[in-house]
């Protein structure tokens, strides 16, 4: 019997060896490599974060067009007040989806058409005087979207009475038409993007779960890191703080004409990028699923003896707290004490390194964008 067992053991040993030797991975090894479920992560992204985000924005843009209609029918100060509140609300919903520049959003240049700032007041006045405008032209990026509404609702005059007066009288029609076109274009673009997710793109997005330059995870990770680096860190904080110029540029803050809104928008964007990193479902404080965080934990990515995901989450927290110390108006903050803006920028920059270098390396994703060579 003993002898038999030895022979049997030897037999298994041989089988085990031969399996390994012939070069093909055992089933166990194969499962090991694909055990992180990229498809589950894509499903969480699409169904719990992205599509609900666009749904919220879509219904908010619908409300916006109603309030615009009210204001056009009766351009009064109280209707202006209501319109501003709705504009802020819709602008805030936009911050939750601006990072998802993929598919139809990429095709229609969603972010550039919704949120190019500083807006070009001279061009807006020219177009209003002219009476014809085509917002699909890229040269009109800085004359449409939320920043153009900011100018139309907050920047036309010194006070509310003066602003409202532009929409009254003989010239009022031209201003009303422009306001109506900008807000309806915001709604149309949002509907286009949401409809595309609902009519096939969601399934393509989830099915494209492999690992290659054109795969969903690789593409959206690039879009995410690009957004964090260029739109959030640079656009909302670094550029107005003068990080890339000789002097600070307070005229370049987001929500310039409303004056007290810039920090809210930046915090919303920061929350959105942090929530996406952690796979947090739309508008849910405690609903987490597969995400960059769980992917990095699965890969057991360690930096300087600590989990990379912990480092990134902690850095999001530090950035958020730093930003909360700023004035609600970044214009005021820059003029009073720009070094606090610069410190916020520095904290945001720390996560650029962790996301763009460490995380992307760990996930074996190549960066697909480079800094333009400037010509």
């Amino acid at each position, binding site marked *: 019997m003993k002898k038999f067992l030895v022979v049997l053991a030897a037999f298994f040993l041989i089988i085990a060896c031969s399996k390994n030797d012939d070069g093909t991975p055992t089933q166990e090894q194969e499962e090991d490599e694909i055990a992180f479920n990229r498809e589950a992560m894509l499903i969480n992204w699409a169904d719990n974060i992205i599509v609900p985000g666009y749904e919220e924005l879509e219904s908010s843009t619908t409300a916006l067009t109603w309030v615009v209609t009210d204001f056009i029918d009766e351009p009064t100060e109280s209707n202006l007040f209501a319109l501003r509140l709705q504009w802020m609300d819709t602008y805030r919903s936009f911050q939750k989806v601006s990072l998802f520049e993929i598919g139809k959003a990429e095709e229609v*240049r969603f972010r*550039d058409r919704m949120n*190019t700032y500083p807006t070009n007041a001279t061009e807006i006045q020219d177009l209003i005087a002219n009476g014809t405008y*085509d917002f*699909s*032209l*890229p*040269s009109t*990026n800085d004359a449409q979207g939320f920043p153009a509404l900011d100018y139309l609702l907050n920047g036309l005059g010194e006070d509310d009475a003066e602003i409202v007066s532009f929409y009254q009288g003989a010239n009022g029609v031209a201003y009303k038409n422009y306001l109506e076109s900008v807000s309806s274009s915001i709604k149309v673009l949002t509907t286009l993007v949401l409809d595309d997710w609902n009519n096939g793109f969601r399934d393509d997005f989830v099915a494209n779960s492999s690992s290659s330059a054109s795969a969903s995870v690789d593409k959206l990770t690039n879009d995410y890191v690009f957004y964090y680096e260029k739109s959030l860190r640079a656009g909302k904080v670094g550029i107005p703080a003068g990080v890339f110029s000789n002097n600070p540029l307070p005229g370049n803050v987001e929500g310039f004409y409303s004056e007290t809104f810039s920090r809210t928008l930046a915090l919303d964007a920061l929350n959105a990028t942090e929530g996406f990193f952690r796979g947090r479902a739309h508008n849910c404080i405690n609903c987490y699923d597969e995400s960059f965080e769980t992917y990095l934990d699965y890969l057991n990515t360690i930096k300087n003896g600590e989990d990379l995901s912990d480092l990134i989450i902690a850095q999001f927290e530090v950035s958020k707290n730093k930003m909360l110390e700023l004035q609600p108006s970044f214009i005021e903050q820059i003029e009073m004490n720009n070094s606090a803006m610069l410190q916020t920028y520095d904290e945001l920059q720390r996560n650029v390194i962790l996301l763009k270098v460490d995380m992307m390396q760990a996930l074996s994703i190549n960066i*697909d964008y*480079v800094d*333009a*060579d400037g*010509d």
Partner: protein
Amino acid sequence: MKKIFITAIIASAALTSCSSDDDGGVAISENVEAPATYNFERGGNSTVSFSGQTTRILMAEEVLEAFKDFDNTTEASLQSMFAHVQGADDFSNADLNDSDKSIRSKTAASKDFFGANATEAAQIKNTFDGYISTQINEVFPNQNVLAAPGVAGQIADGSSVRYVTEKGLEMNQTFAKGLIGALMADQMLNNYLSTAVLDEADNRENNDADITETDKSYTTMEHKWDEAYGYLFGTSTNAANPLATIGEDDSFLNKYLGSVTNDPDFDGIATDIYNAFKLGRAAIVAKNYEVRDEQAAIIRQKVSEVLAIRSVYYLQNGKIAIENGAMGGAFHDLSEAYGFVYSLRFTRNNTDGMSFFSRSDVDSFINDMMNDGANGLWDITPATLDAISEAIAAEFSFTIAQAASAE
């Protein structure tokens, strides 16, 4: 016997190579030493002068601005900026208006390549005139039209806006990058660094005898060499020591030498060119024309490489943009590529004194780029871009991969 024989061969080979190296090195450069910076003086006065080149670079900068000034530029105004006549009110800078210099007169105007080739010179000048006319007559009227195959207009390139012809070309790019070859490189490599110009008439005798030009501190030969230098460093912040700001001082050769030298694959190429200019100029002062011509050969080779590297860089980046479906970005890159490829005609191959690429080589590259389909760059294929890149890189020692990435 065998051992002795082999030892003898090795020894003699070693001796031969040593002695020939030593002879070559010592004999030629023993009396020439390059100064730390491009500073040369005679009797306490600087002998360096290239104001005409600075003027033309500044004129060309204003031409580029005017190419995109939809509100103010006309075909006549742009054409007269290109072919400036002294006193005409063409530029915002009054000194340029007062100047008797013009860009067009020095376009495809080198002694070596076009001195006896007026036909091609006229053809090239007409090509640049055509860029102007296309911009004004085809692109300007469609300022507020979305570009499409067969329709000129504007197209997004990321957050930038590009204005293209019906075939997807940005004429300001073809003009600017074409001028780097037809003006800057041609004047430098095929005119001012040429023995036909440096040694013209009694330049050597005068230089040997330190006979300067009337009322000037420099000899004619010194000045010719400086004029070559001026087409690269004529608008540098510190023209005597220009490498600190390389790439930032113009929109033409300086800018793209900067781009290439910042690519680790070509690290040091700007220093090599600068050092060759310094040593060659010092050789003229030392009346050592052999060292001078060696340095001219280095500059010719390396400036030619810069044009070729940039051609491949933009062809390959255009290819990537097409593969990503980013047509606006692709058109921008490929319009730059078009201009750099056009500039290859003005490169200089030291082995035969001809261009690395003949007129017909360049024409067929351009033809290939624009004729994959009826709508030019809208139809261009990655295969075509690779084929042109390969044909260009084959003339040099760099690889497509080295040129394609700036990192």
